[in-house]
């Protein structure tokens, strides 16, 4: 994936500033993700990683700068159209809908492009969901809800996945499983931006790491450089 040739740029963010009401959270983010790559956003609590993902989706109060998605500028595009451009977002809080059954939750998001996983494939990947198909979404366990949140964006044919802390609060077995899933997705050519606390989980999956602090990218570390930067990372993030 990292070969110098044949790379197509899929997402490019330039000088992104974001605000919640009065407070200025992101102070000029620049980053670039190629097609089929997996990158992570690292940083302390509150450093602005989730906000970066939300900014891409247009879920912050106000934003400026440029976000190019597969050659299209989306900085002023409304959220639902961004999703229709093929971006799948798995939010930190999972956001499973309690008034919808598991199945309704799963099929809620409209198909935005062909090539998404079929329901069978999904149920194969997450057998728990099949079992609990008819129970209300929020009656699922935390882990199951996380799977559901992942699954519902895999169905839609989105090619860029924004995953926020998907391993949070999950039992190690499930974390391991998610790791396998992401590897599989990478194989299928999905582009992934991963926000993770769990560095051990993220490190082997990512092609590149962006380190955020106070809403700015303070370091970019490619997978190859990781061993040499380990100590610095440990110092700044405590990982």
């Amino acid at each position: 994936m990292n070969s110098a040739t044949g790379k197509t740029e899929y997402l490019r963010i330039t000088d992104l500033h974001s605000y919640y009401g009065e407070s200025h959270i992101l102070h000029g983010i620049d980053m670039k993700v190629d097609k089929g790559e997996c990158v992570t956003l690292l940083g302390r609590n509150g450093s602005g990683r989730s906000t970066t993902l939300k900014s891409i989706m247009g879920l912050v109060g106000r934003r400026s700068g440029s976000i190019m998605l597969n050659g299209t500028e989306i900085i002023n595009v409304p959220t639902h159209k961004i999703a229709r451009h093929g971006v799948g977002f798995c939010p930190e809080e999972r956001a499973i809908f309690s008034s919808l059954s598991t199945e309704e939750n799963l099929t809620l998001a409209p198909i935005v492009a062909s090539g998404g996983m079929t329901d069978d494939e999904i149920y194969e990947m997450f057998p728990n969901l099949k079992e609990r198909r008819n129970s209300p979404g929020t009656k699922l366990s935390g882990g199951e809800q996380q799977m559901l949140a992942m699954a519902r964006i895999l169905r839609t044919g989105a090619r860029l996945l924004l995953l926020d802390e998907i391993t949070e609060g999950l039992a190690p077995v499930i974390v391991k499983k998610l790791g396998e899933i992401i590897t599989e997705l990478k194989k299928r050519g999905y582009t992934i931006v991963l926000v993770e606390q769990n560095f051990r989980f993220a490190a082997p999956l990512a092609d590149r790491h962006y380190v955020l602090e106070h809403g700015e990218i303070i370091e970019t570390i490619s997978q190859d450089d990781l061993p040499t930067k380990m100590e610095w990372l440990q110092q700044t993030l405590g990982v």
Partner: protein
Amino acid sequence: MEIFGIPSALLGSQLLIGLINGSFYAILSLGLAIIFGLLNIINFSHGAMYMLGAFVAWIGLTYFEVGYWTSLLLAPVLVGLLGVVLERTMLKQLYKLDHLYGLLLTFGLALIIEGIFRDQFGVSGEGYAVPDALTGLIPLGFMNLPLYRGWVVIAALTVCFGTWYMIEKTKLGAYLRAGTENPQIVQALGINVPMLITFTYGFGVALAAFAGVLAAPVFQVNPLMGSNLIIVVFAVVVIGGMGSIMGSIVTGLGLGLIEGITKVIYPEASSIVVFAIMILVLLVRPAGLFGKS
């Protein structure tokens, strides 16, 4: 035979009439509940929209020879479109603010709409005849039910349960329910939530207009016909549980019945029995009978 010292025939007929009035409450409160669910707005202009529905039917018949059955479709569509325009131009700006502002804006709109109609049509009201196909009485033994009233119940129940079905069992309904919980994420999944909101408001007021057309042959078509009703309908929505679809239908019908009984036992109190119930319910179940937390 007597129940509570009331002849059962009288009681039966009063209950039936209560059910008929309850049908109006049900459609109106259903519209309010849907709007409240997704927009978090107490639509104070709901009564005005009900009135508009009746007036569209009357104007249609008087000036354009549009009959009852056409109006039954046309009026909700036209009033729904007005709702869409109002939502797009005004309500839209208020979502980020306190709910209070939505209530105040729609209150102002109600004053404007009712004021204009009052100026144009006066207050005596206009007569609207029962459509020919629905004139006549059905002898029920204990009473003679006007055919039209029977039709009102059937039409209202059909619309209410149709709406309930749409919301509980269809994809669009799933969007609406999800949108009520977390509109941002629904939008992030690729659904046009602003449009959904506009649609919801339009649909909610279209329901009010539908009730208005149903009411036209029964009550005088009068610019103020909605403004007295609306307060009672608010009470119905609050009792049922704000935003609860089933709650507003069931409560609407139920309160119609209770009002009917009150009219037999102590008619003077029939206009406030709803408020008394509302206070009791809120003391015991703050979220209303069917409300969530």
